[in-house]
């Protein structure tokens, strides 16, 4: 039924899209990008970056204040009505009183082009949940059922808004395997996440967003280049900021109550020099180049990534990089920790 002309169009076109809530909060601030057919793209950013708003807009759940959104060459609502889109939105709960198999069965029947019930249960890893009541599942199980619903109609384009939020490590791995299998069948996938490692491992392109703007757009390798910054934290009596600032690689020094936080572009050079100062250094932690750091590097100036990725000396360190302020990367540190759910360690591995 699809003509070749619409197949040649990009899967998603975002042209100068603005979304303002209640006339005050700007969730999307002149955002433009295109997503090619068959691509797997991550939308990466901290909470409040506008990721969900962008996805809701592409799904027709929200209308942009201005700008143009095209999905598969159509308006979002036309694409949804045509059954071409599958989506896992945030807070997409399940109804009361229905069994998982009934729920998935219903969604199959709402689409003309549908996967078999068995395939859906298998793809989402919920075969053993088929006879369970959908309103009595755990968060992770609910998430997987919603994944099955998103796949029910054999979508050309799949939107996943923080799809692994309540999955454990094993379920995550299985989830991304299924996504990969679907992508290999030609489905375009756009997912939102605030984990750089998740974006790195599963996307061929990463769009980094913050405060409603696109900060960077490139391959995972390019994006990771922004995150070479490390946070070094330790306590020492009477720290001398001017000395610490002269250590190799160090860009910022923040001290509070004898706790020093350095941000360095070259931790390997900074640490020997720090110990060479001969002053007592206790409780040393090296934190990953978290997303927050990457975003700071991106927002601070227009310097090329990798060359000198931190904000220059003398620039005030924003509150978000203070000891308690990390929302996306958690308390910096644990650079040697194993495969945990801790986003901070994921960032480290990625960087």
């Amino acid at each position, binding site marked *: 039924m699809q003509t070749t002309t619409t197949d040649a169009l990009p899967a998603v076109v975002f042209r100068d899209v603005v979304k303002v809530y209640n006339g005050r909060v700007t969730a999307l601030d002149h955002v433009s990008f295109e997503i090619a057919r068959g691509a797997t793209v991550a939308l990466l950013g901290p909470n409040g970056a506008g990721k969900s708003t962008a996805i*809701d807009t592409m*799904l*027709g*759940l*929200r209308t942009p204040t201005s700008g143009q959104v095209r999905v598969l060459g159509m308006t979002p609502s036309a694409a*949804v*009505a*045509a*059954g071409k*889109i599958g*989506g896992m*939105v*945030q*807070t*997409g*709960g*399940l*109804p*009361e*009183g*229905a069994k998982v198999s*009934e*729920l998935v*069965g*219903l*969604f199959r*029947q*709402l*689409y003309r082009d549908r996967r078999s019930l068995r395939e859906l249960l298998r793809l989402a890893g919920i075969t053993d949940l088929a006879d369970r009541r959908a309103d009595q599942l755990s968060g992770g199980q609910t998430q997987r059922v*919603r994944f099955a*619903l998103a796949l029910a*109609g054999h979508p050309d384009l799949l939107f996943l808004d923080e799809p692994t939020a309540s999955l454990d490590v094993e379920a995550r791995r299985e989830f991304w395997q299924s996504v990969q299998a679907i992508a290999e069948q030609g489905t375009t996938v756009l997912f939102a996440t605030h984990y750089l490692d998740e974006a790195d491992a599963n996307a061929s392109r990463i769009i980094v967003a913050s405060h409603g703007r696109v900060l960077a757009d490139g391959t995972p390798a390019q994006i990771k280049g922004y995150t070479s910054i490390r946070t070094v934290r330790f306590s020492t009596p009477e720290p001398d900021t001017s000395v610490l600032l002269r250590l190799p690689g160090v860009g910022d020094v923040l001290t509070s109550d004898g706790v020093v936080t350095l941000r360095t572009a070259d931790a390997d050079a900074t640490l020997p020099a720090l110990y060479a100062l001969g002053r007592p250094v206790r409780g040393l932690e090296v934190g990953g180049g978290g997303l927050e750091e990457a975003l700071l590097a991106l927002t601070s100036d227009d310097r090329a990534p990798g060359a000198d990725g931190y904000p220059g000396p003398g620039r005030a360190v924003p509150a978000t990089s203070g000891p308690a302020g990390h929302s996306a990367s958690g308390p910096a540190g644990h650079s040697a920790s194993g495969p945990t759910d801790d986003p901070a360690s994921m960032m480290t591995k990625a960087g």
Partner: protein
Amino acid sequence: MIAFLRFELVRTLRNVRFLVMLVAFPVLIYLIYAKQHGMSQGLTVATLLLVSMAVYSGMGSAMFASGPQLARERQNGWMRQLRISPISTRGWFAAKLVQAILMIIPGLAVLMVLALTYGHVHLAAGRLGELLAVLVLGTIPFCALGLVIGLLFDTQTAQVAQMITLLVMAFLGGIFIQWSDLPHGMQLIGKLLPSYHLAQLGWNAAAGLPLAMSDVAALAAWTAALGLIATWRWRNESTTA
């Protein structure tokens, strides 16, 4: 739409306690009062009360069939999930209406059986058929009303809003007390409500009197208005999640 309707019915029927509670109250009232002697509006008490309780039960079932559940599912995000499926606004609305209409049948059936046996109500087959048709079709505006309440109120307030609406409908519509006994101002308000017109149609059908077109028109107007509000809210629903 058929698949969606079947899905909605299956999961509602699973909630047996809810179904029993919907029917219990009007049945109880009928059992208490149906044995009273007397005539009013050309009907025996047992017949008059049959219509009143059938209207009350129909209104309640139609509204509670969907309203509070819709409010909960709007809040937990199920509605967003449905909104990004290809189900059309019209398909969703039609399925929800049919679901609510089917929900009034248990209450109606129990009351009818009670009236014909316990209440010794005698109605010719034709008149009974007319009455049933009026009672079923006449609850359509209340089905839409339940949807509107579920779409406008949140989980906590939807239940209360339904109850208040139902009681106002019942009292001012002349179902719990005779409309002519109401204060003048309330009579005027009552006459605007769909419950008043449905009850009039019901009593007229039971008494073998001609049905007034004005009553039918009023119910149709309510249905149209509430249907527009419900479909408009469904289309624009995305802000709560």
